[in-house]
């Protein structure tokens, strides 16, 4: 019974935890600009994170090794260090975007300038990482993030023409008003937001720290196979809502407030309140996870003690990195750089860096020295290989597309 409850909790928090500021921004913006023309990318991204997160969880359970630990071991000191520099920079950028997202959702609820919230948000994120029962807080915000289901309800209650929607999702076209470069640029952004590397850093480090073993493989699979697709549905709901309400009006969202307008239009104040709660919870959870991921990546590369469950004094360098990362992230938002723009860059750069994380993971997941008989199945290898090709192509195309589309400006 207790095990069942644990599994349910894991799945539920995986749903809420899937969505972060990157998904909020990317889904809303693409829905408003391309209708459902990019919906297929969300499906592709969710399948990709399922395949690789399952691998990360399995490697962590069987070998007790976290992803960045393996990155160093498999890629060597030199390539591993470049990988570390890129991953840390991107995770830090994402952390800043998440802190900005929390502050923006508070601004939307209170109408107080978001910059005033930034130091408070930074402090709270640090406190939770430092000593306030992390698991509890992470689970709490994960569950609160489920409030975002209200967006799906709003879509349902809007009584859209499901047949036409399915048709436009399965027959994607680039709207006449958009360039192909912008279309593919946003496709990469959506892929980056679904498959952000910090998710596997956090997921695998958590599994190692909670001492998952082979007996947890089922829990791992359930979390990933049920939680992530349902989380992906939330991202899709945001896109559909934007496509239904914002696209016909020609609204190109550049603020979090516009992402909430479709829900309040259909469901009124209660819907709006839940949507805002969902925004706040999702970005808070992701801020915690990215902050720790900053610490995980560096500490695991250098082989230092790390972990959110051990006394800070036993992992002082890890805690110091987390503290400095949060300060840097909050500082970046305080420069008044637009958090939404920051998010866009963070997810696009994430997409460019995806092969760096997923290639070593795929290699290790095939190595019996780490996994014994739990190495990848043919099916997951086939899917993972196909994704690796997609990720490399996306990675190579990112910068040219960014230049040609003027960062999606078209």
């Amino acid at each position, binding site marked *: 019974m207790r095990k069942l409850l644990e599994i349910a909790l894991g799945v539920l928090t995986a749903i809420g935890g899937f969505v972060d500021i990157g998904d909020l921004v990317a889904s809303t913006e693409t829905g408003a600009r391309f209708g459902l023309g990019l919906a297929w990318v969300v499906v592709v991204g969710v399948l990709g994170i399922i395949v690789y997160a399952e691998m990360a969880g399995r490697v962590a359970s069987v070998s007790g090794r976290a992803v960045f630990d393996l990155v160093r071991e*498999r*890629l*060597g000191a030199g390539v591993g260090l470049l990988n570390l520099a890129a991953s840390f920079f991107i995770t830090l950028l994402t952390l800043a975007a998440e802190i900005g997202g929390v502050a923006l959702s508070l601004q939307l609820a209170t109408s107080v300038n978001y910059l005033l919230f930034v130091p408070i948000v930074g402090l709270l994120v640090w406190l939770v990482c430092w000593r306030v029962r992390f698991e509890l807080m992470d689970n709490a915000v994960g569950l609160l993030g489920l409030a975002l289901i209200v967006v799906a309800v709003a879509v349902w209650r809007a009584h859209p023409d499901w047949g036409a929607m399915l048709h436009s999702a399965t027959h994607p076209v680039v709207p006449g008003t958009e360039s192909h470069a912008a279309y593919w640029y946003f496709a990469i952004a959506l892929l980056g937001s679904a498959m952000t590397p910090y998710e596997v850093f956090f997921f695998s480090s958590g599994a190692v720290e909670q001492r998952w073993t082979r007996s947890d493989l089922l829990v791992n699979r359930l979390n990933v196979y049920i939680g992530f697709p349902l989380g992906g549905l939330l991202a899709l709901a945001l896109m559909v809502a934007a496509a239904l309400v914002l696209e016909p009006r020609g609204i190109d969202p550049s603020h979090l407030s516009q992402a909430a307008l479709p829900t309040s239009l259909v469901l009124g104040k209660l819907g709006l309140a839940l949507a805002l709660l969902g925004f706040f919870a999702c970005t808070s959870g992701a801020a915690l996870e990215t902050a720790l991921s900053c610490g995980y990546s560096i500490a695991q590369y250098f082989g230092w003690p790390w972990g959110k469950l051990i006394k800070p004094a036993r992992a002082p360098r890890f805690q110091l990195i987390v503290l400095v990362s949060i300060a840097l992230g909050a500082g970046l938002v305080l420069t008044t750089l637009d958090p939404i723009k920051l998010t866009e860059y963070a997810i696009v750069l994430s997409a460019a860096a995806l092969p760096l994380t997923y290639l070593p993971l795929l*290699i290790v997941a*095939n*190595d*019996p*020295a780490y996994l014994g008989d739990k190495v*990848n199945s043919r099916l997951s290898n086939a899917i993972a*290989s196909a994704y690796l090709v997609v990720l490399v192509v996306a990675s190579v195309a990112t910068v040219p597309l960014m230049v040609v589309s003027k960062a999606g400006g078209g």
Partner: protein
Amino acid sequence: MRLSELLGAEVVDEHGHTVGKVHDVRLVQEGPRPGGAGPGLRVEGLLVGRRALGARFGFGRGADRGPWLLKALLGSAGHDGRYLPWGRIRSIQARQIRITGTAGDLPRPEPLGEVPLHREQTEGSWRVRR
């Protein structure tokens, strides 16, 4: 000397032809050393090849598992790999290793099989535990 001075060094034969780069150093475990300082690990030779990437990832060590994509991408280290016994080294200077004889005389490396999960140091020797 450090291991890193050997890794990546260029190997040149007596005719000045490049054999490849050192991508690993094979160690052999010996019995207890005099003075009871524990078991010794001694360099036995160098693994030299043109394609070091796959070897670094552990490819070509016994079971060549994994999707064909990885194999194609990383290649198998056994492909063009050579084994350079330490005795054939004439000089090591500035990341260049000169050897006696020619590249053609160098044997293929002997595969060591899968990397064992665990080696323990007990009573002066390394014991492999799988």
